[in-house]
């Protein structure tokens, strides 16, 4: 088994995390916890880490939360400082006289960031983040083109067949839309066994589209990170154990470290089922909890997950 990219995680001064320390991570990590405890912030931190604080990633994160270029009373203050302050703990006023640092990474070798120096000691890694809304049509096209006609394309069929075993083939075909998001884009189509008509994947079901995107992202994230926000959305609980097994298997084969968040008990249960299977014990549930200003983590590895399942212990 290859070394994990992040064997542990320490975050200092980022968003709601004054100092979060997670001693041990695993290959597949499921983040749980109450609303606004910082599950999405944790994914954002990992995204910045994986990209070595890429400027596009940074502005994407700020834009997603309407934090870009906020109006401010002082016109001399730089727009950038005024916007990026939202990423710092307690949203301080940033200036060169106030050199605050954010630190994200393993306990041993974190990446640090300040507005003066940018990111330091980071190494960009392959990474894909899947927000709640999924990937954009353009991102899907790019990811498809990167693996089309390679063995990794098989992962896509495998993923789709978890929900619909009669899928015969999948391909990307130009959309007929004349306007809107899909105009001029290729979109996924599938063919069912015993038929000769390609059907748009999206018309087969939202769960199919999610599953396709997971497999596509995994197939593109070798030796890197897959980050998924609210992984359960659109996926029926009955297929979640199989979904997790596929994620574990591809993550192992391509040396990917996976971080996903969820609210759903069904999703955790599916995860617990997968972790209980032989060869899939490299999964971890991380529960984030807020105590005043401090966020703490409680870890459930394979042993503890199996006890929780058998003893009906609530770990969300």
């Amino acid at each position, binding site marked *: 088994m290859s070394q994990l990219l992040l064997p542990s995680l320490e975050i200092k001064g980022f968003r709601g995390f004054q100092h979060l320390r997670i001693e041990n991570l695993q290959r597949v990590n499921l983040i749980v916890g109450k609303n606004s405890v910082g599950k999405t912030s944790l994914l954002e931190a990992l995204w910045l880490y994986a990209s070595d604080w890429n400027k596009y990633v940074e502005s994407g994160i700020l834009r997603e939360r309407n934090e870009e270029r906020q109006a401010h009373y002082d016109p001399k203050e730089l727009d950038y400082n005024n916007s990026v302050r939202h990423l710092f703990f307690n949203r301080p006023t940033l200036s060169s006289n106030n050199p605050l640092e954010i630190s994200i990474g393993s306990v041993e070798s974190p990446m640090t960031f300040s507005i003066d120096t940018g990111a330091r000691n980071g190494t960009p890694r392959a990474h894909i983040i899947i927000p709640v809304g999924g990937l954009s049509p353009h991102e899907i096209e790019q990811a498809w083109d990167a693996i089309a006609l390679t063995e990794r394309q098989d992962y896509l069929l495998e993923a789709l067949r978890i929900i619909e075993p009669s899928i015969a083939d999948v391909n990307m075909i130009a959309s007929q839309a004349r306007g809107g998001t899909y105009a001029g884009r290729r979109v996924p189509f599938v063919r069912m066994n015993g038929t000769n008509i390609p059907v748009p994947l999206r018309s087969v079901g939202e769960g199919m589209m999610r599953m396709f995107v997971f497999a596509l992202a995994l197939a593109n994230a070798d030796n890197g990170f897959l980050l998924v926000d609210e992984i359960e959305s659109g996926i029926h609980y009955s297929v979640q154990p199989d979904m997790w097994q596929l994620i574990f298997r591809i993550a192992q084969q391509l040396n990917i470290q996976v971080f996903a968040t969820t609210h759903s008990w069904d999703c955790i249960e599916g995860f617990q089922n997968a972790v209980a299977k032989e060869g899939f014990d490299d999964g971890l549930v991380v*529960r984030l*909890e807020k*105590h005043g200003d401090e966020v*703490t983590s*409680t870890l*459930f590895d394979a042993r*503890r997950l199996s*006890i*929780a399942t058998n*003893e009906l*212990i*609530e*770990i*969300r």
Partner: protein
Amino acid sequence: MSTKNVLLVEGKNDEHLLYALLEHHAVPKNSFRIKDKQGWEKLRRELDVEIDASDLECLGILVDTDASLNGRWQALCDILQKCGYTSIPSQPNALGTIIEQSGKPRIGVWLMPNNKKSGMLEDFLQMLIPSENVLWAYAQRCVEELPERLFSSTHNSKATTYTYLAWQEQPGQLFSVAVKANSFDANAQPAQELISWIQRLFLLPLL
């Protein structure tokens, strides 16, 4: 049933006896959940996960100490320390231990029979029998004078208790039923102390 307040016990006998004592002392049954962990070994293995249940506010642990009160206390202290409890008293409190730590569930420990000597549930029950009880005295003598002894000496009180129960108006009743039938005195001091520990632990109104 509350999952905020949980009391872990080793077996069905503990569970049923507790229900009988609680009922006698008019403690509402649903104010906490009694969870049978099926033996000390399983309880010990799984305690760290029980403590980390997300909705837990208060966890009681009621265990036999068998041959060694100190050994069992130390084993529990080790687990609690690993779970991040930093202010554990060096000795168990004679009235039942309660450990508080901010940001963590409150923990209670009751070591059978009375947090002072080694023993088990039956040793506790024995303390609920008035000293002048003639059947109990006779049961003790019978067990002492057995022509052949198949059980270990730690099980003396267990053998005596079941012998005593065999001679009640309804022979061979469960501990819980025997409490209701007054074969054991639910008002005896040790029972009062146990109930009071439960009330303090789960912050129940004192009666």
